[in-house]
């Protein structure tokens, strides 16, 4: 019931601190959670991707994550510096359904937070939880090293509860992957992100 109560909490916080205050609050909580989980080190991408599959990384707290090992991200020298990762189901979807079956309607406060975030930060959020989630992933990436290199997380695309999709043009451009590939992924996945080695010299074709 904590997740359903959270919806009321957000509504209350919007009244007290405004949508921008909730965003600030969520981002701080995302950072705190990532830092509480701590650091991880992997010998290479293979061991990291196995750990992701087995649910052993800090990202596993989100639920089932699929490493799309057929979608490697390469740098200017053609070396693999990252991969695309995807979740079949948004972490917040069960909560949305639980609100539907207990309270009846998702609070407008939820959309208000997402809208504020899309207008002022990154146009990719579907619900208030995306705000927490994106910052959490970015901070977790800093705490993971693969072959000694810390990671960077780029949120690439999301599919909302109503089926509409959002693709991050700026992040897609960084990893040089065609938007049609991402669109195809969104038929099967609700949240797609990239993990790359921080500071990689990516191709700019």
């Amino acid at each position, binding site marked *: 019931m904590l997740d359903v109560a959270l919806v009321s909490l957000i509504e209350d916080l919007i009244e007290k601190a405004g949508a921008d205050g909730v965003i600030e609050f969520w981002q701080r909580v995302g950072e705190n959670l990532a830092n*509480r989980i701590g650091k991880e080190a992997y010998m290479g991408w293979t061991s990291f991707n196995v750990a992701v599959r087995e649910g052993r990384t800090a990202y596993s707290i989100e639920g089932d994550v699929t490493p799309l090992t057929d979608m490697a991200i390469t740098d200017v020298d053609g070396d693999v510096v990252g991969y695309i990762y995807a979740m079949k189901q948004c972490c917040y979807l069960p909560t949305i359904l639980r609100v539907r079956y207990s309270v009846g309607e998702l609070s407008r406060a939820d959309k208000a937070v997402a809208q504020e975030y899309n207008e002022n930060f990154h146009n990719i959020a579907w619900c208030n939880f995306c705000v927490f989630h994106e910052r959490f992933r970015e901070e977790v990436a800093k705490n993971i090293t693969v072959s000694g290199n810390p990671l960077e997380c780029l949120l690439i695309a999301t599919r909302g509860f109503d089926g509409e999709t959002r693709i991050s043009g700026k992040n897609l451009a960084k990893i040089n992957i065609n938007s049609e590939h991402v669109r195809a992924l969104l038929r099967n996945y609700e949240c797609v992100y990239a993990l790359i080695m921080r500071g990689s010299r990516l191709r700019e074709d």
Partner: protein
Amino acid sequence: MEGPEHVRVPESNPFVDVATHLFLEDLASKVGTGGLNNYLISLANNLAARMPEEEYASWDEFLEAMKRGQSILSTFEEVRAVTPNCMVTPHSPFERGWREYAKRIGAFSKVHKEVAEYYNAKVRPTAVNSLHIILQTFRDAASRRVKVAGRPVRYEQIATVWVDGERKLASPDRLPALLKRAGITRTRLGMLLRNNAEVWLLYSE
């Protein structure tokens, strides 16, 4: 009163629960233990107020709805009636979130226990941690939204056991009357506490 026909809302993603715990910890750092206690109480009251009111022609009809998970009092937890008035919850609805927290983050923040001690001193002595404040306040508020044969339902907490076995019982001066109303003996209570997370009383005035 158990049965396979029990209808449950979908399970939440424990990640959302963990994020909410961190959210509450962040809040506690700003408003203190007393402030967090007030916040949790208001949170649970708001949640109950947003849920639909209920009316039943008879106590049997109400118990059947409880058993099937159709009452607001059994939306977030599996409830079994051991007597017409004595309810038990076999597993705390917060257990999954707490396990995920313990697995991914580590020891539960002390603030969850501190706020429960505050609540135990001020309201009723049956909370082991912050989550019980939400659950017990919610039950109290939700029960007032239920009428059986035109009369409002009333709720009292008899005992709480947390995952680690820590117990909290109603105050010694009230316990005998609560047990009598619930239709169980002290020995039976002890037996129930071996296998359940919560023992509580529902009655109509």
